[in-house]
């Protein structure tokens, strides 16, 4: 019973992720795309939870849904006059792009299903402690460098986006 329920939940998350990602690619309105992206991010967070990556699932919701998506919506609102005509986004070179991305999809699926991966999942369980130890141990240099990157991005974004004061 519990297994069936988990299976249903997993496939629900997977379907939500896949279909909303396709909707982002195909919809013509920017706001619809942004809200489809919301469901994609939530679905990916659910998949992380199923992969027993609890810290990443929480980080996905906090950073992507709470940060990046809100930023994108701000971008949409600030760069469009709020009229339906303006909110449409034109598309170019649809046929070659569709061909190339379908070919890519087929290639990736072929690789995924034809390779015999070693499929022995580990024990799972909470990951926060392991991530914390690794971040302040083996990965301390990239951790500190990423703080510099974030500071640089913060200053750069503030400098680029501010209004000129005369």
């Amino acid at each position, binding site marked *: 019973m519990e297994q069936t329920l988990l299976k249903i939940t997993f496939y629900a998350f997977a379907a939500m992720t896949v279909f909303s990602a396709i909707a982002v690619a195909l919809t013509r309105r*920017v706001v619809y795309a942004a809200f489809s992206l919301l469901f994609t991010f939530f679905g*990916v967070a659910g998949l992380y939870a199923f992969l027993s990556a609890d810290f990443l699932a929480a980080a996905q919701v906090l950073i992507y849904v709470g940060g990046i998506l809100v930023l994108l919506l701000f971008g949409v609102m600030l760069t469009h006059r709020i009229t339906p005509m303006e909110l449409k986004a*034109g598309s170019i070179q649809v046929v070659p792009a569709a061909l190339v991305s379908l070919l890519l999809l087929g290639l990736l699926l072929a690789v995924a299903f034809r390779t015999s991966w070693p499929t022995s999942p*580990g024990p799972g369980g909470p990951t926060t402690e392991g991530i914390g130890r690794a971040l302040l141990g083996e990965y301390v240099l990239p951790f500190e460098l990423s703080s510099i990157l974030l500071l640089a991005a913060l200053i750069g974004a503030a400098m680029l986006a501010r209004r000129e004061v005369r």
Partner: protein
Amino acid sequence: MIAPLEMYLAIGAVLFASGAFCVATRRNAVMILMGVELILNSANVNLVAFNRFMPGGMDGQLFAIFVIIMAASEAAVALAIILNIYNNLKTIDVDEADSLKG
């Protein structure tokens, strides 16, 4: 319940293909940014799935964390650039911003 690894890889492949299609066909800069976010998410799904199915360390999840950090800073800077383009050209159509074209 643990779904097979191929399932996660297939989801990642679909996310990547939609992101690539979005980046290639859109002219709206914000939509291109959304496609980039989709591509980064597909990479993250693959990293976390491999981390789960090949035990021995947290490397996949740490890589995913660094990808998320990079995506956050990239989105902030890219949106600042888009706002600047909008303030200067009154459009965010990437085909219109061609004043550097030779």
